[in-house]
């Protein structure tokens, strides 16, 4: 039964970052995932030995990080013009910075090339760096189920500049980009339906920007005379409470004195 389960769904159920093919024929028929390119071409990029925190879990991270390292080398050789910066964490997380205008092309390669197959767009979010010239940074988290690998694409965009939309490649990018637009005000070109998704109807402003206050600008309440909800400038009024921080023993001593 376990063999039937493991062969189900194209063998995906036994896919894990440390999976080793168990069929004997694969040892002689299937080459490595990156067969013809010189992997680890540049010797100065050998990964430093990770510190042994977390004990045996480092075995898992070592294998995953080495797989991600091979993927990065492969990507750098295939598409050197598209990569501005690469970060590889010791847990195997990969952050690749790409030029903003090349986003649809990078997604095309990562989705459709057989050695990548990043078919899932898991998340799109943005970060606000107000002190930088290119204020926003948008990150795309892509997942390859076939190779059990995650990759995060980064691109920077100044304010009031449009970003190419990822909806051409991933359907899940539809709502994810709507959320980025609603929270940060980044506009995606060629998006089929770019409108607010989390904020109230008629809400103004972009809440997750750093210059948007924590309390917001307006508050809503139900007005009994007008019999509807009204919006007013924020007050955050509270009932008066007298905070008496003295302990009972201090009060006794003060009375005695």
């Amino acid at each position, binding site marked *: 039964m376990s063999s039937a389960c493991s062969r189900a769904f194209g063998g995906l159920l036994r896919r894990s970052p440390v999976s080793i093919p168990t069929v004997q024929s694969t040892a002689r028929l299937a080459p490595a995932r990156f*067969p013809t390119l010189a992997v680890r071409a540049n010797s100065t990029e050998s990964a430093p030995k990770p510190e042994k925190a977390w004990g045996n879990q480092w075995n898992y991270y070592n294998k995953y990080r080495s797989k991600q390292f091979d993927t990065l080398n492969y990507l750098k050789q295939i598409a050197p013009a598209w990569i501005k910066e690469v970060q*590889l964490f010791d847990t195997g997380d990969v952050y690749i910075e790409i030029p903003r205008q090349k986003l649809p092309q990078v997604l095309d*390669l990562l989705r459709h090339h057989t050695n990548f197959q990043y078919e899932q767009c898991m998340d799109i979010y943005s970060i606000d760096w107000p002190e930088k010239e290119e204020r926003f940074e948008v990150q795309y988290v892509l997942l390859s189920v076939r190779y059990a690998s995650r990759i995060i694409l980064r691109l920077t965009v100044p304010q009031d500049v449009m970003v190419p939309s990822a909806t051409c490649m991933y359907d899940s990018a539809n709502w994810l980009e709507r959320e980025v637009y609603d929270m940060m005000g980044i506009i995606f070109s060629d998006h089929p339906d770019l409108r607010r998704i989390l904020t109230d109807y008629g809400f103004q402003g972009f809440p997750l920007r750093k210059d948007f206050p924590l309390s917001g600008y307006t508050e809503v309440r139900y007005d009994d005379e007008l019999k509807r909800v009204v919006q007013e400038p924020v007050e955050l009024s509270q009932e008066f409470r007298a905070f008496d921080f003295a302990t009972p023993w201090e009060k006794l001593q003060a009375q005695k004195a």
Partner: protein
Amino acid sequence: MHRFLTCASALSRPALRAPAAQSMSRSSVRCYAKVKTETGFAGVEVVPDARERLVEVYTQTLEAIKAVPADAAYRKAVEGLTKHRLQVTRTARELADIEEAFEGQQVEELLILAQEELALIPRMVEYKPWVVDADHKEVQIIHKNYFDSGPSIQLEPKPEPEPAAAK
């Protein structure tokens, strides 16, 4: 889970292993030719002539990749990959051998991948990511530690606070 129709046929090789056969406990006694009736993936139909179509798509890919310059890593990668898969597809005795050779990926999935790769080639010829300027320096992978990585973007270092006039 592949669904199989079993039909007894006189095969000389005993214990012919077919994938996902729940009835494998009887395989040592008799051998059956198994015909796949479904792939287990929604929307992916069984392709009976998968081998021929795979060979066709792989040869088209090897033709189309010639539009990419020979020194581009993309061409070497696609050629290596496709030639290996073509060789496996041609020399395998059964479709089950192809699926085994590629770690359980079904031939239908291999066909989809091959078609996507073929469709990607003309777009990559248009994008040309292998074309770099003469002064392009190879990007070094920055290794970061998860615990003491700090912000993922290097900001300008804050100016040192002036030493307070004390004493």
